[in-house]
Protein backbone atom coordinates (compact mmCIF):
# COMPACT_ATOMS: atom_id res chain seq x y z
CA UNK A 1 0.00 0.00 0.00
CA UNK A 2 1.17 3.53 -0.75
CA UNK A 3 1.13 5.98 2.12
CA UNK A 4 2.31 9.45 2.79
CA UNK A 5 5.89 9.30 3.94
CA UNK A 6 4.85 10.95 7.17
CA UNK A 7 2.75 7.94 8.20
CA UNK A 8 5.60 5.53 7.60
CA UNK A 9 7.83 7.83 9.61
CA UNK A 10 5.23 7.87 12.38
CA UNK A 11 5.41 4.08 12.52
CA UNK A 12 9.20 4.18 12.71
CA UNK A 13 9.00 6.85 15.41
CA UNK A 14 6.65 4.70 17.46
CA UNK A 15 8.85 1.61 17.18
CA UNK A 16 11.98 3.52 18.16
CA UNK A 17 10.40 5.38 21.07
CA UNK A 18 8.37 2.48 22.46
CA UNK A 19 10.50 -0.61 21.85
CA UNK A 20 8.42 -2.62 24.36
CA UNK A 21 5.48 -2.33 22.02
CA UNK A 22 7.60 -2.99 18.93
CA UNK A 23 8.96 -6.16 20.50
CA UNK A 24 5.59 -7.42 21.73
CA UNK A 25 4.11 -6.83 18.31
CA UNK A 26 6.88 -8.58 16.43
CA UNK A 27 6.79 -11.63 18.71
CA UNK A 28 3.03 -12.11 18.97
CA UNK A 29 1.39 -13.16 15.72
CA UNK A 30 -2.06 -12.28 17.05
CA UNK A 31 -1.32 -8.57 16.67
CA UNK A 32 -3.24 -7.13 13.70
CA UNK A 33 -0.08 -5.50 12.39
CA UNK A 34 2.23 -8.48 12.91
CA UNK A 35 4.52 -8.47 9.84
CA UNK A 36 2.45 -5.61 8.42
CA UNK A 37 4.61 -2.54 8.99
CA UNK A 38 3.12 -1.08 5.83
CA UNK A 39 -0.27 -0.64 7.53
CA UNK A 40 0.03 2.35 9.87
CA UNK A 41 -3.60 2.24 11.06
CA UNK A 42 -3.19 -1.39 12.08
CA UNK A 43 0.11 -0.61 13.84
CA UNK A 44 -1.40 2.28 15.77
CA UNK A 45 -4.58 0.32 16.45
CA UNK A 46 -2.42 -2.37 18.04
CA UNK A 47 -0.62 0.33 19.97
CA UNK A 48 -3.95 1.71 21.21
CA UNK A 49 -5.00 -1.75 22.43
CA UNK A 50 -1.55 -2.32 23.98
CA UNK A 51 -1.81 1.00 25.80
CA UNK A 52 -5.35 0.29 26.92
CA UNK A 53 -4.27 -2.98 28.47
CA UNK A 54 -1.78 -1.12 30.67
CA UNK A 55 -4.02 1.81 31.52
CA UNK A 56 -7.12 -0.22 32.15
CA UNK A 57 -5.73 -2.68 34.64
CA UNK A 58 -6.59 -2.34 38.29
CA UNK A 59 -4.23 0.07 39.94
CA UNK A 60 -3.27 1.49 36.56
CA UNK A 61 0.33 0.72 35.88
CA UNK A 62 1.52 4.21 35.05
CA UNK A 63 4.94 3.27 36.38
CA UNK A 64 5.63 1.24 33.28
CA UNK A 65 8.76 2.64 31.69
CA UNK A 66 7.26 2.69 28.25
CA UNK A 67 4.24 4.80 29.16
CA UNK A 68 6.08 8.12 29.31
CA UNK A 69 7.51 7.82 25.78
CA UNK A 70 4.12 6.57 24.62
CA UNK A 71 2.47 9.75 25.84
CA UNK A 72 5.21 11.77 24.14
CA UNK A 73 4.55 10.08 20.82
CA UNK A 74 0.82 10.76 21.18
CA UNK A 75 1.55 14.37 22.06
CA UNK A 76 3.87 14.94 19.11
CA UNK A 77 1.55 13.34 16.61
CA UNK A 78 -1.60 14.97 17.95
CA UNK A 79 -0.02 18.41 17.59
CA UNK A 80 1.51 17.64 14.19
CA UNK A 81 0.80 20.12 11.41
CA UNK A 82 0.22 17.12 9.14
CA UNK A 83 -3.49 16.25 9.39
CA UNK A 84 -2.82 12.63 8.35
CA UNK A 85 -0.48 12.17 11.28
CA UNK A 86 -2.95 13.71 13.74
CA UNK A 87 -5.68 11.51 12.27
CA UNK A 88 -3.59 8.41 12.86
CA UNK A 89 -3.50 9.16 16.58
CA UNK A 90 -7.17 10.13 16.77
CA UNK A 91 -8.43 7.04 14.93
CA UNK A 92 -5.76 4.53 15.90
CA UNK A 93 -5.30 5.36 19.55
CA UNK A 94 -7.76 7.85 21.05
CA UNK A 95 -10.84 6.15 19.63
CA UNK A 96 -9.64 2.84 21.08
CA UNK A 97 -9.39 4.52 24.49
CA UNK A 98 -12.60 6.51 24.04
CA UNK A 99 -14.81 4.12 25.98
CA UNK A 100 -12.44 4.16 28.94
CA UNK A 101 -12.65 7.56 30.67
CA UNK A 102 -9.87 6.83 33.13
CA UNK A 103 -7.48 5.85 30.36
CA UNK A 104 -8.36 9.01 28.45
CA UNK A 105 -7.83 11.09 31.57
CA UNK A 106 -4.39 9.60 32.07
CA UNK A 107 -3.42 10.34 28.50
CA UNK A 108 -4.67 13.90 28.77
CA UNK A 109 -2.80 14.78 31.95
CA UNK A 110 0.41 13.52 30.40
CA UNK A 111 0.17 15.74 27.32
CA UNK A 112 1.76 19.16 26.83
CA UNK A 113 -0.39 22.31 26.86
CA UNK A 114 -0.85 22.33 23.07
CA UNK A 115 -1.41 18.57 23.16
CA UNK A 116 -4.17 19.00 25.72
CA UNK A 117 -5.80 21.64 23.52
CA UNK A 118 -5.80 19.28 20.55
CA UNK A 119 -7.08 16.51 22.78
CA UNK A 120 -9.96 18.74 23.94
CA UNK A 121 -10.73 19.67 20.33
CA UNK A 122 -10.98 15.98 19.50
CA UNK A 123 -13.20 15.28 22.55
CA UNK A 124 -15.46 18.20 21.64
CA UNK A 125 -15.87 17.18 18.01
CA UNK A 126 -16.41 13.51 18.82
CA UNK A 127 -19.06 14.39 21.41
CA UNK A 128 -20.87 16.55 18.90
CA UNK A 129 -21.14 13.60 16.60
Amino acid at each position, binding site marked *: *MQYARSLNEAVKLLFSRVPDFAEARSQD*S*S*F*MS*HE*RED*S*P*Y*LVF*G*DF*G*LFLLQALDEDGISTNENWLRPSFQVIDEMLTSAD*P*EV*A*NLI*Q*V*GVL*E*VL*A*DHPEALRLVKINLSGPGQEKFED*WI*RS*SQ*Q*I
Partner: protein
Amino acid sequence: MQLILWENERLLNELKRKWFREWLEDRVRRRPYADTIILFGPITGLGRALGPAPKVLQLGTARMNLLNAIQNPTLRRLVEYSYRVGARIGNGSTADAIRFERETGILLSRTGHMQKGREVLSSLEALFRSNKLNSKDAQIVRELIYDLKDALK
Protein backbone atom coordinates in the same frame (compact mmCIF):
# COMPACT_ATOMS: atom_id res chain seq x y z
CA MET B 1 -19.31 34.41 19.17
CA GLN B 2 -17.33 31.15 19.37
CA LEU B 3 -20.10 29.62 21.49
CA ILE B 4 -22.73 30.56 18.91
CA LEU B 5 -20.64 28.95 16.16
CA TRP B 6 -20.20 25.76 18.20
CA GLU B 7 -23.91 25.66 18.93
CA ASN B 8 -24.76 26.12 15.26
CA GLU B 9 -22.29 23.40 14.33
CA ARG B 10 -23.74 21.10 16.97
CA LEU B 11 -27.29 21.65 15.68
CA LEU B 12 -26.19 21.11 12.09
CA ASN B 13 -24.41 17.90 13.01
CA GLU B 14 -27.46 16.75 14.96
CA LEU B 15 -29.59 17.27 11.86
CA LYS B 16 -27.10 15.42 9.69
CA ARG B 17 -26.94 12.57 12.18
CA LYS B 18 -30.72 12.33 12.15
CA TRP B 19 -30.72 12.39 8.38
CA PHE B 20 -28.03 9.70 8.30
CA ARG B 21 -30.09 7.45 10.58
CA GLU B 22 -33.06 7.84 8.29
CA TRP B 23 -30.88 7.25 5.24
CA LEU B 24 -29.42 4.11 6.78
CA GLU B 25 -32.81 2.77 7.80
CA ASP B 26 -34.25 3.51 4.41
CA ARG B 27 -31.31 1.89 2.64
CA VAL B 28 -31.17 -1.37 4.44
CA ARG B 29 -34.64 -1.45 5.92
CA ARG B 30 -34.61 -2.57 9.50
CA ARG B 31 -30.88 -1.84 9.78
CA PRO B 32 -29.44 -3.27 12.93
CA TYR B 33 -28.95 -0.86 15.75
CA ALA B 34 -26.86 -1.10 18.86
CA ASP B 35 -28.06 -3.28 21.70
CA THR B 36 -29.67 -6.22 19.93
CA ILE B 37 -28.37 -9.16 18.02
CA ILE B 38 -30.36 -8.25 14.91
CA LEU B 39 -27.72 -5.60 14.65
CA PHE B 40 -26.02 -8.00 12.29
CA GLY B 41 -29.08 -8.52 10.18
CA PRO B 42 -29.64 -7.14 6.71
CA ILE B 43 -26.26 -5.69 5.79
CA THR B 44 -23.81 -8.02 7.37
CA GLY B 45 -25.83 -11.18 7.86
CA LEU B 46 -23.86 -11.70 11.05
CA GLY B 47 -27.03 -12.74 12.83
CA ARG B 48 -26.85 -15.90 10.73
CA ALA B 49 -23.14 -16.28 11.37
CA LEU B 50 -23.66 -16.22 15.09
CA GLY B 51 -26.54 -18.66 14.97
CA PRO B 52 -29.19 -18.84 17.63
CA ALA B 53 -27.56 -16.93 20.44
CA PRO B 54 -28.24 -17.58 24.08
CA LYS B 55 -30.59 -15.02 25.56
CA VAL B 56 -27.78 -13.12 27.23
CA LEU B 57 -26.12 -12.51 23.89
CA GLN B 58 -29.24 -10.99 22.48
CA LEU B 59 -28.89 -8.15 24.95
CA GLY B 60 -25.36 -7.27 23.95
CA THR B 61 -23.96 -4.67 21.63
CA ALA B 62 -22.65 -5.54 18.18
CA ARG B 63 -19.14 -5.56 19.55
CA MET B 64 -19.99 -7.69 22.57
CA ASN B 65 -21.89 -10.26 20.53
CA LEU B 66 -19.06 -10.62 18.07
CA LEU B 67 -16.41 -10.88 20.77
CA ASN B 68 -18.43 -13.55 22.55
CA ALA B 69 -18.52 -15.62 19.40
CA ILE B 70 -14.94 -15.22 18.15
CA GLN B 71 -12.14 -17.71 18.85
CA ASN B 72 -9.26 -16.41 16.73
CA PRO B 73 -7.13 -13.84 18.65
CA THR B 74 -6.29 -11.71 15.61
CA LEU B 75 -9.93 -11.53 14.62
CA ARG B 76 -10.73 -10.54 18.19
CA ARG B 77 -8.30 -7.63 17.97
CA LEU B 78 -9.72 -6.56 14.62
CA VAL B 79 -13.24 -6.46 16.08
CA GLU B 80 -12.06 -4.64 19.21
CA TYR B 81 -10.46 -2.10 16.90
CA SER B 82 -13.36 -1.83 14.47
CA TYR B 83 -16.31 -1.58 16.86
CA ARG B 84 -16.69 1.11 19.50
CA VAL B 85 -18.94 0.62 22.49
CA GLY B 86 -19.93 4.24 22.96
CA ALA B 87 -20.05 5.40 19.36
CA ARG B 88 -23.23 7.17 18.36
CA ILE B 89 -23.04 6.50 14.64
CA GLY B 90 -24.87 3.44 13.33
CA ASN B 91 -23.78 0.27 15.13
CA GLY B 92 -20.44 1.73 16.21
CA SER B 93 -18.46 0.03 13.44
CA THR B 94 -15.76 1.53 11.27
CA ALA B 95 -17.95 0.61 8.29
CA ASP B 96 -20.79 2.78 9.60
CA ALA B 97 -18.36 5.61 10.40
CA ILE B 98 -17.22 5.49 6.76
CA ARG B 99 -20.82 5.43 5.51
CA PHE B 100 -21.62 8.42 7.71
CA GLU B 101 -18.60 10.39 6.48
CA ARG B 102 -19.37 9.66 2.85
CA GLU B 103 -23.06 10.45 3.05
CA THR B 104 -22.95 13.56 5.25
CA GLY B 105 -19.54 15.01 4.41
CA ILE B 106 -18.80 15.27 8.14
CA LEU B 107 -15.47 13.72 9.08
CA LEU B 108 -15.50 11.95 12.43
CA SER B 109 -11.77 12.58 12.83
CA ARG B 110 -9.26 14.92 11.24
CA THR B 111 -9.14 13.16 7.86
CA GLY B 112 -11.70 10.41 8.39
CA HIS B 113 -11.88 6.63 8.60
CA MET B 114 -11.42 5.48 5.00
CA GLN B 115 -7.79 4.44 5.35
CA LYS B 116 -8.45 2.57 8.56
CA GLY B 117 -11.29 0.77 6.79
CA ARG B 118 -9.03 -0.23 3.88
CA GLU B 119 -6.34 -1.59 6.18
CA VAL B 120 -8.80 -3.53 8.33
CA LEU B 121 -10.37 -4.93 5.17
CA SER B 122 -6.99 -6.01 3.84
CA SER B 123 -6.17 -7.68 7.16
CA LEU B 124 -9.53 -9.49 7.25
CA GLU B 125 -8.99 -10.76 3.71
CA ALA B 126 -5.52 -12.05 4.61
CA LEU B 127 -6.92 -13.73 7.71
CA PHE B 128 -9.64 -15.35 5.65
CA ARG B 129 -7.09 -16.70 3.18
CA SER B 130 -4.88 -18.03 5.97
CA ASN B 131 -7.12 -21.03 6.70
CA LYS B 132 -6.53 -20.48 10.41
CA LEU B 133 -10.19 -19.86 11.20
CA ASN B 134 -12.86 -22.23 12.40
CA SER B 135 -16.08 -22.21 10.44
CA LYS B 136 -17.90 -19.71 12.65
CA ASP B 137 -14.98 -17.26 12.68
CA ALA B 138 -14.65 -17.65 8.90
CA GLN B 139 -18.31 -16.80 8.47
CA ILE B 140 -17.96 -13.74 10.69
CA VAL B 141 -14.91 -12.60 8.69
CA ARG B 142 -16.81 -13.07 5.43
CA GLU B 143 -19.63 -10.86 6.69
CA LEU B 144 -17.25 -8.22 8.06
CA ILE B 145 -15.47 -8.13 4.69
CA TYR B 146 -18.80 -7.75 2.92
CA ASP B 147 -19.83 -4.92 5.25
CA LEU B 148 -16.55 -3.02 4.83
CA LYS B 149 -16.53 -3.49 1.07
CA ASP B 150 -20.07 -2.16 0.98
CA ALA B 151 -19.03 0.91 2.97
CA LEU B 152 -15.92 1.55 0.88
CA LYS B 153 -17.41 0.99 -2.58
